[in-house]
């Protein structure tokens, strides 16, 4: 039930995207009274720009804790999907049959093989199954690949999900558990006061929502909000341009890292990363390069009509790894932000809520995600 009469809560989650909604639902399931604050209809919304992959194979190079956290999330994802289906009747169409990162030259193949090897050789890594496939092996799995496909790295743990339905399911499940959703309440100002928090939100910051604990899950907005509770949350926008085609009969039994076919048949293509600030305009040159690569991977895609393009700003923490922490200066304030909100949805829904609730870290390596790894400024 959106809003409602109540304006005091056990926990207020700032952000109604995949991270915020997963946390808010998880906390509501634990019996907390939870508010989820969200922006309006037009907002940056990284959750509308994801590629919906549940991806393990290349995560965590440089921080083995991230690889482990990713693996854990992929392992519990089926539980998340089943629980959401039970609670809402919505099927998020999780498919974890394996994913291929296609390579279009020998040089790409060599580079990729080295990268994955480096990832697996890290201290603290728990190895998982992966294979470097040559062209023939790829063609056996995906007969439609084009002649320029040189090979792939394959991991049976990889998959994808209907991310938009996931977001909707999380919102439905959250409200069924008594959670209160506050759209059009961008937070202007966080006021820590006497052991709790007053959030000044909405146009002019005139709506005030109070909570004993708050969780900053506002994606790119966390950079501005973090210092209000004494946390440095260095996240920046990274633009990805996405194309979606008309619906076509299923042809991909496996997910490819930059080309995926959704459960309702459309094909999504996303293969670009740009540092473009907060500019969400679409550029034909980038689309052309992405399209060219997609057609090299699957020549028959050339005929498909692209019905929509958009540019989404994804959240990129300074070092690429998630940021989970709680404020020393303002106890009770937490932050949770990351680049891979779909992959980590399992962990966010099932492992983070107990941490927020009880303070007990979900695992031994969890401290690696704290903000102390960056510089810590004074409170604003």
């Amino acid at each position, binding site marked *: 039930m959106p809003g409602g009469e109540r304006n005091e809560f056990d926990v207020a989650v700032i952000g109604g995207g995949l991270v915020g909604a997963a946390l808010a639902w998880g906390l509501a399931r634990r019996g907390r009274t939870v508010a989820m604050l969200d922006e309006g209809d037009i907002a940056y919304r990284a959750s509308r720009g994801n590629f919906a992959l549940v991806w393990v194979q290349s995560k965590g190079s440089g921080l083995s804790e991230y690889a482990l956290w990713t693996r854990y999330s992929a392992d519990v994802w089926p539980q998340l999907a089943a629980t959401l289906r039970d609670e809402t009747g919505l099927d998020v169409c999780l498919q974890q049959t394996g994913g291929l990162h296609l390579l279009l030259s020998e040089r790409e193949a060599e580079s990729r093989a080295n990268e994955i090897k480096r990832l697996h050789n890290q201290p603290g890594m728990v190895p998982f199954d992966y294979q470097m496939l040559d062209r023939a092996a790829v063609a056996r799995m995906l007969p*439609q690949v084009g002649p320029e496909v040189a090979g792939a790295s394959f991991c049976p743990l990889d998959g994808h999900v209907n991310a938009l339905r996931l977001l909707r399911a999380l919102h439905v499940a959250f409200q069924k558990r008594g959670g209160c959703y506050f759209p059009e309440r961008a937070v202007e100002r966080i006021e820590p006061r006497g052991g709790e928090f007053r959030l000044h939100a909405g146009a002019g910051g005139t709506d005030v929502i109070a909570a004993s604990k708050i969780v900053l899950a506002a994606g790119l907005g966390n950079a501005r909000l973090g210092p209000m509770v004494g946390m440095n949350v260095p996240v920046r926008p990274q633009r990805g341009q996405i194309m979606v085609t*008309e*619906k*076509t*009969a299923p*042809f991909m039994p496996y997910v490819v890292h930059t080309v995926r076919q959704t459960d*309702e*048949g459309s094909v999504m293509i996303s293969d670009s990363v740009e540092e473009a600030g907060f500019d969400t305009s679409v550029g034909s040159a980038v689309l052309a390069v992405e399209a060219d690569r997609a057609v090299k991977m699957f020549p*028959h895609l050339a*005929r*498909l*009509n692209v019905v929509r393009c958009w540019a989404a700003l994804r959240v990129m923490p300074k070092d690429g790894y998630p940021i989970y922490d709680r404020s020393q200066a303002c106890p009770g304030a937490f932050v949770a932000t990351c680049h891979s909100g779909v992959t980590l949805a399992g962990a966010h829904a099932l492992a983070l809520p107990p941490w927020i609730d009880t303070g007990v870290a979900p695992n031994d390596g969890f401290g690696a995600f704290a903000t102390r790894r960056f510089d810590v400024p004074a409170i604003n």
Partner: protein
Amino acid sequence: MFRRLTESRRALTIVVDGVATPARGGDSVAAALLAAGHAACRLSAVSGAPRGPYCQMGVCFDCLVMIDGVANRQACLTPVRDGMRVETQRGKREYGT
């Protein structure tokens, strides 16, 4: 159902789902189908429900048909050609069409 007020245009033949069907020069494929008594030209890719041309100006995308082996072509924007093969667009576009 539609009939022709004039038979002045050049007569030609298209093939609709394998059946030779009369058409006239200047017809769009959509017009030719309607003149031949076909109200539906496709089955929806979402539910399989039958659909037919709605706007005749290229903005509704309900008139999608397979033309000469290429799927999802807008019938109302495609002029007929003698011998053209037109097929019902049955749901989602198939691989290779």
